């Protein structure tokens, strides 16, 4: 690790101002991607701005048909929250699938989606549920937020403060793990909220999380795994590496989407 200056602002405004002043500064919101990278000397930000002392950035709240989760809420808190378990059980479950206990006790939802790792779980949940990401400057729809691998719509000095989840009628997440990293080799999140049907895929795409409109159209006719039978997505644009070819990932998207829909409607995922 290279030396850096460590800031611990008390407010979002202070954090944003530090960020504006220091172009190369990085926000620390759990650090389970950033710190290992720094330890390997693959990253060396001269300034770290720790968000953990800012009041009001963490917490879970339900109002009506939406659930709001503060950006600094730890994965473990989402996983064990009775409110989340009641409102969007799959979200609690998904949070419990991230990393290991150490990661889940430090990692945060804001950190995860700001990083937009192409194999991470939360981006699939956010896109798959059609969330709104709230920052210190504006509200951003999930569909506009995730702009590509490790990139988002966030502007310089923009800080995520919370994520607003509409509560779906049905939802499920199927994660097929990379056996080494335990990240998603392919993860498929499906949800149904009225006529809004979403199928979001993480891990597979070479440009990060994406929706599968052909699957969504098919599911609009009938929200059943049968609707997806025989359907696949092209291998073009899929990741290909030592853990799986593009064809294998494309194949898994179909398999996991069917299983996710089955799980969402309460059938065995096979």
């Amino acid at each position, binding site marked *: 690790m290279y030396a850096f200056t460590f800031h611990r602002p008390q407010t979002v405004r202070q954090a944003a101002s530090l960020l504006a002043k220091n172009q190369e500064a990085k926000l620390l919101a759990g650090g389970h991607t950033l710190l290992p990278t720094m330890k390997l000397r693959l990253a060396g930000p001269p300034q770290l701005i720790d968000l953990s002392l800012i009041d009001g950035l963490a917490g879970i709240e339900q109002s009506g048909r939406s659930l709001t989760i503060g950006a600094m809420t730890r994965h473990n808190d989402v996983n064990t929250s009775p409110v989340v378990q009641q409102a969007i059980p799959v979200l609690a479950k998904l949070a419990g699938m991230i990393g290991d206990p150490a990661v889940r006790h430090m990692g945060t939802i804001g950190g995860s989606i700001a990083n937009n790792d192409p194999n991470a779980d939360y981006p699939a949940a956010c896109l798959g549920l059609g969330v709104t990401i709230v920052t210190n400057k504006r509200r951003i729809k999930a569909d506009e937020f995730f702009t590509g691998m490790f990139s988002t719509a966030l502007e310089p000095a923009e800080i995520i403060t919370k994520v607003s989840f509409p509560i779906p009628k049905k939802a499920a997440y199927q994660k097929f793990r990379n056996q*080494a*990293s335990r990240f998603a080799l392919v993860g498929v999140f499906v949800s149904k909220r009225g006529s809004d049907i979403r199928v979001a895929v993480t891990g597979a795409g070479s440009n990060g999380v994406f929706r599968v409109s052909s699957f969504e159209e098919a599911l609009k006719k009938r929200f059943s795994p049968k609707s997806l039978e025989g359907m696949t997505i092209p291998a073009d644009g899929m990741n290909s590496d030592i853990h799986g070819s593009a064809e294998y990932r494309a194949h898994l998207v179909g398999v996991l989407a069917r299983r996710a829909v089955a799980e969402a409607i309460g059938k065995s995922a096979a």
Partner: protein
Amino acid sequence: MSATGIGAAVRRKEDRRFITGTGHYTDDINRPGQVFAYFVRSPHAHATIRSIDVKSATAMPGVLAVLTGAELGADKIGNLICGWMIHSKDGSPMKMAAHPALANGKACHVGDPVAVVLATTLAQARDAAEKVKVEYAVLPAVTDPAAAQKQGAPQIHDVAANNTIYQWHLGDAKAVDAAFKSANHVTKLDIVNNRLVPNAIEPRAAIGDYDSGTGTFTLWNTTQNPHVARLVIAAFVGMAPENKLRVIAPDVGGGFGSKIFIYPEEVVALWASKRVGRPVKWVADRSEAFLCDAHGRDHVTHAEMAFDVDGKILGLRAKTIANLGAYMSTFSSSVPTYLYATLMSGQYEIPQIYCEVDAVYTNTVPVDAYRGAGRPEATFVVERLVEVGAREMGQDPAELRRRNFIKKFPHQTPVIMNYDAGDYNASLKKAMDLADYKGFAKRKRDSARNGKLRGIGFSTYIEACGIAPSQAVGSLGCGVGLWESAEVRVNPTGSVEILTGCHAHGQGHETTFAQLVSDRLGIPIDNVSVVHGDTDKVQFGMGTYGSRSGAVGMSALVKALDKVEAKAKKVAAHLLEAAEGDIEFKDGKFSVAGTDKSAAWGDVTLNAYIAHKFAGQELEPGLKEGAFYDPTNFTFPAGCHICEVEVDIETGNTEIVAWTAVDDFGVVINPMIVEGQVHGGIAQGVGQALCEGAVYDKEGQLLTGSFMDYCMPRADHLPSMNVDTTVTKCPSNPLGIKGCGEAGAIAAPAAVINAITDAIGTEDLTMPATSSAVWLALQKANRMPHAA
């Protein structure tokens, strides 16, 4: 059986310190004034080093020195060596290329150490290392063993044409050809035995400390064999005479073979400590360990087995290309030869065997012994051939094995080994009963109903352990003898210290060795301490590997205990005023035959030291005896492992749903420790079969350079295992021990792959059988339902 004697499931004495974090590892040791070493390593797999500019690095804060191969050469520090001479078929000796501890003009693999920075703190050393300017001329690289010998392949060392180290063979090629001509059926397989990264939980570490006052060096080192390290560093590297070099191996957190070898880093730590006049500490981080710990396996093999009309095996032939990496590591040459081809007979009566092995250099990390070392590779070849042969001939794989089992002992195989004892039917039968083999068909149908393909696979393995009779290995090219030593020091109060030349790095010697003493002397195991891992304390010994510590190390201890008992009887005779021949020793008590006169162990030991009851000029005071034990044969642990899997037809994911292991380890000292060794071995074997595999790209970069990409087996890869034993005593050592450390790793890969291939109905599957590999095999076999 006493509560702490042989056969008792005593809890490990080591557990408290290992589990509570109070162990004392090399990294826990800090010497006054110590500085830190950080290695500059080649980022290229194959490159000429045009120049090394250390000027700006040397000027960095805290830096004492930046050293390169030039200084190493100037100080006449010798090369690392491979200690087992293998001759090619044509009689020529193996082509051992120079292996300097710091690269000398050329880097041959990614991670090859090129320079070392010595600085007051590790961070300073690391900062300065980034300022070392190395100008490389990158050369084409080769990483694949089969490609290394091909015309036009990059030439790594001048001494080895076509990168070929040796072309060795064993057996009678003509007799095998004749056997194949008379065959009714021939099974042929192309096999890749995947390259593994050992990944002991404690990375390697070294502290070199030169005392200018006495001219002696001390090395604290993560080694499995401190005396061998001292011998090589003294005699070959030429650091100092043996008496001026002390090697200490404190607690060592796992080795699996990778800590047998003498590596560049410990040599540099010692040498640099003299150069800078300060103790020098180096601790590998995990990323570094991937690039500098000797890897394991990495064979490419074509193998064939000939059967007669009754399914009796007539012959086996195999041609293997073994990847030894960029340099020949300490025992690398022996692994794919005498630890491999000699086990090709498996548990079977095979009249003729011929095995050819070409060993090659590639631009990869050196490859050497890793848990099992040659024997897992041999077992995989034999057990895959038998299983596939059974399938091709439409026979039950268990029945085919049974028909070919060796039933009479001793049995001379055509490949050197003379099996002394075993009952292969017994372990097979017990395993089949425990695994409910009869119920498999029903379980397969049940799985099918859930969309899963179920398969079952056997591995009836054999290994040669108790390494090894010195004369025998000497005749095969080994540069050392493989006996073991023990010393028993009895204290005046009757407590005992055992000094063993073995070294424990997770095996539990402090418990099992104490159990043997407790059994023999009738004293509590808490009164027995085991001393090991320090060349200044312990007599020369050969260390721990090859499942040898029980069979060889404890046999040496038995010899020493025999001497202690004989001496103690002399003391007791004086004490009890009886004839020596009338003294009986039992349950910690000396008694005079036919009388009620007796003396306790502690009375005798005290009297041995106070020497009041006998003339010290006639009977030496004290009670301390030593022994060296040289085995007369290898030992032959064997057994049957049965693996049952369910394959998810849509994803290719394999779940191991049941595991049965019935092993014959001879006499078992501590069944709990043995079971733990079996569990660990199976986990490593399952790792090789399902998920582990070092992958290099074309340029020689290690793609699996961290746990993000290199998949270690985890708890959820394994079912709860059904582990049992059968016992035939080993006739060649006094305790009847065979050894258990490597069995799981040897047996498991074949059992897993036999089970998966049974499930998916195609043999075209390579390790590791990841979900994507299994899916691909299903696709190729066109058995994949068009779900998509």
